[in-house]
């Protein structure tokens, strides 16, 4: 690329940014065989220390029954796992976790996409509009839950009073499904802005020429959306699907902790919260290790399924 010396700095920059992609850079060669390892060590050390080592510890202690203070551990084989498989409560929590993750993911993705499609069409005051939608993302999960808790307060919550207008006695914290409803509303509300950002930037990267061509082919906005926009958004949607499932499974911990106020009683909770409850509050190290191993396996299976089955259908343009 030759640049004429008469161009201004701004013009040069613009040219540089919009320069065509050249052939891929040649693979870097190191003089000594050890050099690349030296570069890798910090990263590997972090992964080993903060991931593999604790994971290995969890697997080991799931086969033991241990007193909390660490004076003695008895090898019990698969007893901890057997206890889990027999526990009705654990099965119920697993069921709720699956339901909760599916609903939260579907609603958060759906609403995020809907808002993004609508915001994409806004021309006047688009900036403030988008900022308003995105700003919720800056709220930490426990804070979101605190706001939710005020909304759903048994005595003075506006949501409770609103439900009462329709003759419904909303009892978050007492009634299982009322609490589930509150958890889902707060979790979805917290995650929609994240999906919104990605969908919006995905939509804006759909080339204008493609949109115009589609406009000629189909008059119906819905058809254009389904046939042209959606397939082009697939890579974004796939990425968000994984992020959202992970969010629903793990990051909703803070929300659940605040909503159940330290006392889960008969309220719904996810598998991660149960691990915390038994391990940290109940001091049952073996049992909660077994639960976290189950969770690890679950996530591994989920990841494989997502990448093997779903990614094949995704077309990266």
């Amino acid at each position, binding site marked *: 690329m030759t640049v004429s010396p008469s161009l201004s700095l701004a013009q040069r920059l613009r040219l540089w940014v919009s320069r065509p992609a050249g052939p891929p850079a040649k693979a870097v060669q190191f003089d000594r065989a050890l050099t690349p390892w030296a570069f890798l060590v910090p990263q590997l050390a972090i992964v080993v220390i903060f991931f593999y080592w604790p994971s290995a510890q969890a697997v080991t202690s799931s086969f033991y029954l241990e007193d909390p203070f660490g004076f003695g551990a008895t090898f*019990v084989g698969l007893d901890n796992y057997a206890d889990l498989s027999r526990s009705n409560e654990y099965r119920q929590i697993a069921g709720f976790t699956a339901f909760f993750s599916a609903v939260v993911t579907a609603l958060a993705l759906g609403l995020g996409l809907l808002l993004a499609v609508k915001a994409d069409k806004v021309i006047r005051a688009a900036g403030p509009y988008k900022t308003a939608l995105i700003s919720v993302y800056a709220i930490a999960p426990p804070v979101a839950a605190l706001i939710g808790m005020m909304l759903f307060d048994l005595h003075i919550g506006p949501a409770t009073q609103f439900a009462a207008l329709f003759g419904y006695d909303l009892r978050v*914290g*007492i009634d*299982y499904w009322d609490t589930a409803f509150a958890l889902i509303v707060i979790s979805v509300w917290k995650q929609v802005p994240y999906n919104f950002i990605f969908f919006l930037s995905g939509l804006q990267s759909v080339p204008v020429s493609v949109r115009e061509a589609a406009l000629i082919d189909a008059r119906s906005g819905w058809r254009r959306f389904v046939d042209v926009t959606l397939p082009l958004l697939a890579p974004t949607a796939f990425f968000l699907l994984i992020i959202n499932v992970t969010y629903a499974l793990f990051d909703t911990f803070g929300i659940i902790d605040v909503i159940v106020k330290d006392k889960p009683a*008969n309220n719904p909770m996810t598998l991660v919260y149960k691990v915390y409850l038994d391990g940290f509050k*109940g001091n*049952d190290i*073996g049992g909660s290790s077994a639960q976290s191993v189950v969770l690890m396996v679950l996530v591994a299976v989920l990841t494989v399924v997502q990448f093997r089955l779903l990614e094949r259908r995704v077309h990266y343009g």
Partner: protein
Amino acid sequence: MIKSASLFVLALGTTALPALAQTEITWWHGMGGRNGEVINEISQMFNEAQSACHLTPLSKGTYEEALASGIAAFRSGEQPNILQVFDAGAATIMAAKGATIPAEELIQGAGKPFSREDFIPGVRNFYADSTGKFVGMPFNSSAPIMYVNTEALAKAGVEMPTTWEEFEAAAPKLAAAGYLPLTASQLTWQFVENFKSRNNQQFATNNNGYDAVQGTEIIVNDTNTVMMFDKLKDWADKGWYGFYGAGWSDNQKPFEEGKVAFWIGSSGSFGGLSKTATMPFSAGFLPYWASLGQGTQSFIGGAALFAMAGKPDDQNGCTAEFFSFLTSPETQVYWHENTGYVPVTTAAYELAKSQGWYEKTPVAEVGIQQLMLPGGEWTKGYRMGFFPQIRSIEEREFNRIFSGEVAPKDALDIIQKEADELLAKFAKTAG
């Protein structure tokens, strides 16, 4: 060689110097808000009262978090000198024999006077082993008591009930006067554990769990406990009792707003309640069943301090020094008057009395009086492992009772079964 030897001496000198000046000890606790501030004030008072030791208190969040942090720290050899452990966690730390130094041994070992008889009867056994030796040092102690909306009583023309039978007679009048007769903030503590103590009922096999960890089973699906929960459910159905979940403050709030006649709270609640209540209130003992007995003393609630093992002698000496300081009548009264927790020694109670504290605030005396009621065979306490988890199971089932999903008897059967499984598991870990 000479160089390294002199370096060694130098290193020894620099590390030993601060220790010579003052011995540092740490205290991890699970209190926040005003109570946490009073802990800091008491530590300050201790540091100013003598010069050999310096105590640093550190809040670790809630009771459960303090216990979890203490355990994690012990496993990595970083334990504090003093750990505050709450009533439900007592069995866990006391079953771990090498984790603590019994408070009684520690204090006597440091050459300080110690007498079990100095403590009020209700606190003597809860944190002691089966021979009566103090393992934990009773610190912040509370009792479940009944707060009373005096306006409601006057309007309905009823007296404060002392038994549940009297409550049943008063409830229709209170309901007719437009009040919800009863709420309670922690059913596990107030209607299971202290239903047992107030009515002198056995709570677990093996002498309430004191005699052995192996084979201890809880007793919660017996006729009398089932009767208590049948009654509660019946009262809820009649509009005499309002259940607002397992959270403490959700059940306290309607009382503060003046809508409820009786609220079962803690003796430690009155400081906060004086600020938030919108109506005049008074307090009385947690009611008992006249059909079951005369009403015995309640279990001590709250928490105790444990001296952690594995610390050098000079630090243990400071811990003993602090424990003695803590039980002095002056410190106890300061704690009592600023937090609402009961004083743990008779001398402190007498001092508060002589200062006229109870003439000013009669409610402050209810908790300690309830703990000084005559005891019975089953009122000294209970010792069950994994008890925080057992409470969680109870909370789950109580929610189900009051949302109509399960009958009280069936719920208590489930609690019995799951709690026994946990106790069996605990016996294995401790064995």
